[in-house]
Every structure is written in structure tokens, then in C-alpha cells.
């Protein structure tokens, strides 16, 4: 078991967003979270990355409880990469600097030492010619791919993707999904919150349907998409498919 979430509760003020979520993710598995906006997908991902403190429940990474308040969140976050809907590149740095910042600060190694690693990543995702570009000089798809490279440069064990194609023009969605396919093929453990049902069906090992802060139904894509057990799942799928 790579990642295990046990009875996770999270509320913002009076608004309870996660109501006892349980989820297990195996090494090399891709789990897709689907559900309407506000069903708790993003919040769940932010809790796993420790961007939000959980109110109750536990999250285990390789058996280590990362939600332990005594635990320093910084090294945990280094092990879990996250990519956001709006890319969130640092606009005052070019693509290469965006990628190098965290490795430089955390490993203490120099640009020159780290550069080959970064260059290899840019090569791998066909962005070698964009290393010197600033975010506002790149398309949304390119920016999102740089954001993925930036997260990968920390050599994370798990990657979280929060609606990473939702802000993209339709013709740019494909290049980002190709990157995700590539990562899956390389054996990365991934959790995606997504609205791309076709992609989820094609690539995911497991799909979870979130409804009002609970995982209402989970299973292999064929089963969940074709023979949903819960009426609410069927209803949701009929709306988005």
C-alpha cells in the first residue's frame, strides 16, 4: 500500500467538505476522482499534500502517518508532487528556473549541478526549446507541462493532479494528457481529480465517485462507468457523458 487514507474529515467553518473518506492507492496505480464541483475532490488532494490541515482521520504514506501534527510537513511535501488547475508557475522566472528552484533550495546543490537533471526532464516531455521562456511566453498546455516537470524534479513518489486540464483550450488538453499517459507507463503512483471521463476510463486503474464529501462508489473504470451501482453515480455520469 503506497498511500492510505482512513476516515478523513475536513471542514471549513460550518461547511464540512470531507465526511469520512477512506481510500487506498497501490504503488504504480492511477486513481481518478470524479464528481461534481464542490464534491470535495480538490480538498482531498490538498489534504494529502498537507496544504490543508485535516480535522480528523489519518493519511499514511508508506505506512508513515503524515497527518501527525508532530510531523514536519516539508519533507512529506517533497515526496508528494502536486499540479494545479491554473498551472501556478512563478511568472518572474523562466521555465528552467521554475523547475530548479525547489531542488536548489532543498538539496543545496548548484544550478550547474542540477541542470542536467532538469534538461533531461524537458527533453523527455519535448519542451527543451522552452527552457528559457517565461510563463507568459508559453501556451497553457506548455505551461502545464512545465508545472508537471517542476513537480517531477523533486523526484516525488506520488503525484497529485487537480483538474490539470480544466483551464486549457480544448486543442491543448491532449498534450497534457499524453504526459499523464507517459507517467503512468513509467509506473508513477498518481491521483487525479478530473472531468476528463474518457481519459479516466482509458487509463485509470480505479475510479472514485465523490458526492457531498463522501466516496459514494469506487471500482475499476469499466464497472463504474458501465454498471454503476449507485443511482447518484448513474445520474452524474448521464449528465457529463
Amino acid at each position, binding site marked *: 500500500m503506497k498511500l492510505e487514507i482512513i476516515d478523513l474529515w475536513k471542514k471549513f467553518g460550518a461547511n464540512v467538505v470531507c465526511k469520512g473518506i477512506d481510500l487506498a492507492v497501490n504503488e504504480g496505480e492511477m486513481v481518478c476522482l470524479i464528481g461534481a464541483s464542490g464534491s470535495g475532490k480538490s480538498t482531498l488532494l*490538498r489534504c494529502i*499534500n498537507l*496544504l490543508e490541515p485535516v480535522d480528523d482521520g489519518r493519511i499514511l504514506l508508506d505506512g508513515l502517518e503524515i497527518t501527525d501534527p508532530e510531523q514536519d510537513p*516539508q*519533507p512529506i*511535501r*517533497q515526496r*508528494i*508532487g*502536486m499540479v*494545479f488547475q*491554473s498551472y*501556478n*508557475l*512563478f*511568472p*518572474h522566472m523562466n521555465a528552467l528556473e521554475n523547475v530548479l*528552484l*525547489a531542488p536548489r*533550495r*532543498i538539496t543545496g546543490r548548484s544550478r550547474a549541478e542540477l541542470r542536467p537533471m532538469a534538461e533531461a526532464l524537458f527533453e523527455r516531455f519535448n519542451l527543451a526549446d522552452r527552457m528559457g521562456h517565461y510563463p507568459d511566453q508559453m501556451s497553457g498546455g506548455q505551461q502545464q507541462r512545465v*508545472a508537471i516537470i*517542476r*513537480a517531477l524534479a*523533486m523526484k516525488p513518489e506520488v503525484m497529485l493532479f487537480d483538474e490539470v486540464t480544466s483551464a486549457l483550450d480544448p486543442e491543448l488538453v491532449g498534450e497534457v494528457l499524453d504526459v499523464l499517459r507517459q507517467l503512468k507507463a513509467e509506473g508513477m503512483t498518481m491521483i487525479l481529480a478530473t472531468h476528463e471521463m474518457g481519459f479516466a476510463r482509458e487509463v485509470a486503474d480505479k475510479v472514485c465517485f465523490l458526492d457531498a464529501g463522501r466516496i459514494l462508489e469506487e471500482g475499476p473504470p469499466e464497472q463504474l462507468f458501465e454498471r454503476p451501482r449507485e443511482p447518484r453515480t448513474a445520474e452524474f455520469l448521464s449528465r457529463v457523458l
Partner: protein
Amino acid sequence: MGASERQAAPAGSGAAGRESGLSRRERRERRERRRSMLIAAASTAIAIAAIVILVPMTPGWEKVQKAFFNEAVFVKTFPKLLEAFWLDVAMFLWCAPLIAVWGLVLALMRDARSPALYPLKLFAILYSDLFRGVPVILVIYLIGFGIPGLGLPRPWNSPYIWGTVALVLSYSAYVAEVYRAGIESIHESQRAAAVSLGLSHGDMMRFVVLPQAIRRVIPAAMNNLISLQKDVALVSFIGPVEIFRQAGVYKSLYANFTPYVGAALIFLVVTVPATRAVDRMIARQQRRQS
């Protein structure tokens, strides 16, 4: 039918315009520009003429001229005023970096989010309320006379030290607010991205938030520096003979206000180009953001 005619007419004249090198729109705009420049030139000329002709006709003009624009007094006092202005410049150069640093420290305190740092945040809030709420001149008086009055030995009771300390305390409260506006203008998602990469809070501020925030607030901060350049003269209230005080001495000696006009001119020579430069910076930044 009617619509197609309306469309056809501009197309035809547009073709004719292109032959002469200018489109119809360009020609019309050029005509309008020329006319508005003529109007502006004429109205400016009339306004200046009115001032030059009418003001000297007022009954008090001769006295005002003698008291404010006296050539003999101007020539006698100007060199010494210029000399005294260097003290203003020196105090400014000494204060500005301290204000920049202390203002930033205050802004960072104010940004503190962990409960353990709440006392710092509270301090920064009270500080900013206090020093923005009290006129600079009062701060200068209270600190400039009050702290040396505690019995500090020379040179630590110098009005130069405590006067500039007062300026730094006051101005850093304003500058901290400027920084804070900049820091808050950086979207939360930038912090989330930095933190998710495993960067520490300090690294996040230093490499991600502050570089963007400071770039955004430089024009506003520069405006504060221009006010500072003027307010440095307030330190004269507790003793230092800088340009404002020197002008006052001459005013008393000659019972004439011309030295103040001279001092104002010297300030203008410095602040007008600085203001223009800031305006250009703001315009450039707005272009870049749009």
C-alpha cells in the same frame, strides 16, 4: 439594400485613402489632433497672458513681489540654501534604506499566519495604526526631544539621529502597508505551488512572493520616497539647520519670504524629475500587466 450601401461607401473611400498612404480614419484623426493642439496652445497662451498681465495689476502685487520675489535677497541667500540642502539629501540617503528594510520586516510580521507568531502580527498592526495615525511632525518632536531627554550622553542624543529615527519609524509604517498590499496581491495559488514543492515558508517568501510583490509596489514605494524627500525638512524643528531652517533664518534676517521661494525651487528641481520617473514606471507597469 440601405445597409449594403452604407458598407460600400467606406470601402470605396478606404481604397482611395490607401492610395494616398493614409486611411480615412487616419486622416480624420490627424485633423482632430491638429485642431485640439491649436485649441490647447491658444488656451495656454491666454491663461499665461492673463496671469502675466492681470496679477501685476492687483493692488497688492508690488508688495507681494517685494516680499516673495526679491532678486537681491534671492541672489544673496541662494548659495547658502543650496549648501544647506545637502543636509536634506544626506538625511534622505540615510533614512531611505532603513525605511525600506524596516518596512519590509513590519510587512512580513503582519503577514505572519501561524498562531505562535500572533504577537508579532499584533505588534505590526498596532505599530502601523500608531505611526500612520500620528502626524510625522509630532513623532519628530516627541522622539527628537523625548528620547534624548532621558539623559543620553552626546553624541547619542543628537537631533540628527533621533530626527531621522522618527522619520524611519513613521515612514516605515506607510511603506509596510505598501509592501503588504503587494504581498497580498500575490495570489494564494503561488504560495500553494511553492509550498507543495516542499519549500520552507522563508524560501517561499524570499523566492516566490516577495520578488513579485516588490516589483508590483515599486512605484507606490517611490511615491513615498518623494514625500520623504520633502518631509526630511521637518527634522529642522528639533534643531538641524537644513534648507528649510536656513531659509527661515534668512526670512527673519531680511523680513522677506524670497528665501522660501528659493528653497521651494531647489525642492522642485529634485522632486519633479523624480515624480515624472515614477509616473513613467507606473505607466510601463500598467502596460505590461494589461
